[in-house]
């Protein structure tokens, strides 16, 4: 706020408040900023390359970034607090809204937490479908990342191609759940409904069509001198720093640390599928780009195996204390009516206890801490979201000493989603 505005409105209180903020900044920026030697610049929250509403307070020495202070919370919707006021089944809907590029993954981690506390079984068929959809969601998320990352760096055409292929994935989600993004398709004990007849043909068509498209992206970018100039040797983070600063997922693997939760602590039957974990060497923007591109190929491999071995049988658990009975039983069985009524009014209750479940989301480790106090509502739900950790840790760490123009590439390369960050 300029001095002029302060005088006309006569808010002397605001003036002292404003000076207090400068005093607070003393610990965050270098002393040179207070004398005016370096410049403080706000990037965001309405900046197109900050992927949503991220505000970065930058201290600039010419074009070099001296320090970068992330300011998040513009998209904070209190999802964790709201979930405490809903029954377990109602609260699944909230999880889709966190990371809007990875709705199935968010459903999955929350359902896994419930299933772990309840010791609820998940049929083989539901597990395989969950794996297929989790990997499709990974492709969907990586396509949006690829498109927007390239767009930030000035490569417009890749964005259009990536969105074209993403449309096919979203259409498949719509076939299953009726929704393109906020699908809420995974439920405790299995799935909302069985896969629809048109899903598998569409998936097979996509499996045939997509590998050539990944080749196309790589032809456009891998040896493109402009792309290499803007990505190689930029935003380097060493493996030791990446672990200490909490990096996970492709951001960590770009530095060469082999940690993929699907391999290290398999869930949902990932141990049954053969796939490789792509690793980078240099920990720069280019290696993280390569990791994600290769991950899309590995996802395709997993989906192919899961489709080939897709078992028949029920698509959700038969444990009626947690899973509602099929509608066909309601006309003939009194017990089914009781279960139906109980589950859709009061919901189920979980045994008292606390669990921590983590999965490999497209961005890294997505974990859910679920505490149950024996009632029909979660006592406390906390999500450890990769975007939050990456925004607060990886971006300031990588951008120290970088050029301002490279910061855009760094933000793109850690692939943050602000809905995931702020919850």
């Amino acid at each position, binding site marked *: 706020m300029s001095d002029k505005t302060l005088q006309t409105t006569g808010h002397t209180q605001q003036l002292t408040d404003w000076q207090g903020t400068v005093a607070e900044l003393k610990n965050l920026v270098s002393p040179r900023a207070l004398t005016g030697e370096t410049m403080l610049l706000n990037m965001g929250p309405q900046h197109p390359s900050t992927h949503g509403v991220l505000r970065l307070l930058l201290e600039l020495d010419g074009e070099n970034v001296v320090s970068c202070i992330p300011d998040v919370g513009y998209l904070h919707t209190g999802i*964790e*607090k709201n979930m405490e006021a809903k029954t377990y089944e109602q609260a699944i809907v909230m999880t889709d809204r966190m990371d809007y590029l990875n709705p199935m993954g968010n459903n999955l981690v929350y359902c896994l937490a419930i299933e772990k506390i309840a010791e609820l079984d998940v049929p083989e068929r539901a597990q395989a479908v969950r794996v297929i959809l989790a990997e499709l969601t990974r492709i969907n998320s990586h396509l949006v990342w690829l498109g927007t990352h390239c767009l930030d760096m000035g490569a417009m055409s890749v964005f259009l191609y990536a969105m074209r292929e993403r449309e096919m994935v979203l259409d498949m989600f719509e076939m299953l759940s009726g929704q393109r993004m906020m699908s809420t398709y995974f439920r405790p004990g299995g799935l909302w409904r069985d896969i629809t007849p048109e899903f598998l043909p569409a998936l097979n068509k996509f499996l045939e069509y997509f590998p050539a498209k990944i080749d196309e992206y790589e032809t456009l970018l891998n040896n493109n001198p402009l792309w290499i100039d803007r990505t190689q040797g930029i935003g380097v983070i060493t493996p030791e720093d990446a672990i200490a600063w909490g990096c996970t997922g492709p951001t960590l693997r770009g530095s060469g640390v082999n940690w993929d939760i699907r391999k*290290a602590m398999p869930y949902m039957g990932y141990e049954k599928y053969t796939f490789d974990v792509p690793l980078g060497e240099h920990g720069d923007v280019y290696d993280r780009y390569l990791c994600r591109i290769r991950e899309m190929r590995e996802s395709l491999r997993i989906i192919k195996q899961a489709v080939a071995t897709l078992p028949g049988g029920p698509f959700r658990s038969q444990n009626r204390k947690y899973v509602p009975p099929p509608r066909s039983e309601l006309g003939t069985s009194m017990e089914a009516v009781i279960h139906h009524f109980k589950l859709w009014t009061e919901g189920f209750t979980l045994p008292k206890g*606390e669990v921590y479940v983590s999965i490999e989301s497209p961005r890294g480790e997505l974990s859910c801490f679920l505490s149950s106090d024996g009632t029909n509502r979660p006592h406390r739900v906390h999500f450890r979201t990769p975007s939050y*950790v990456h925004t607060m*840790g990886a971006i300031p760490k990588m951008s120290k000493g970088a050029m301002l123009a490279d910061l855009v590439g760094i933000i793109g390369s850690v692939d943050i989603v602000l809905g995931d960050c702020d919850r």
Partner: protein
Amino acid sequence: MQPLDPVELARLTLKEAVLDVTEFRGETTIVVDPARIVEVCRFFRDTEGLEYIFLSDITAVDYFPQEPRFALCYHLYSMLYTRRLRIKVFLPGDDPRLPSVTSVWPSADWEEREAFDMMGIVFEGHPSLRRVLMPEDWEGHPQRKDYPLGYEQVQFSFNYDDIDRTKPYAKE
């Protein structure tokens, strides 16, 4: 190096800092003394055979109206032995404070800031304990159990005098 049992080793080395050990669904929780949290974390990070080098998450839980009211769960991960461990501390309802572990894991920085913002737990020695998700001038800590879910009334009027009378915002 063979993986060692964290519970046994902690009881041997840390002695009375270990207050309780619980097991639920295959997850081990070690309850420790909050005053010695930095020493405990350093022990789990550096001891050979444990090496929990990765701090996944710090979760604050409010057990209102029980006492001790607050709990902090440190979720550690050992990349070498691919296993997890939960360190838990209990804190009193009035003035919950404990030392910060930012010196052990830099990634504790923003997890502690979130716990401060949402639950009002004060971490001594934290480099800059500010609000992170809520606005700087926000009053109260929204994740606490005694904090109401809805606060501000929904406005059904475009009459600004009417809104001014009822809306709870700061007036000079």
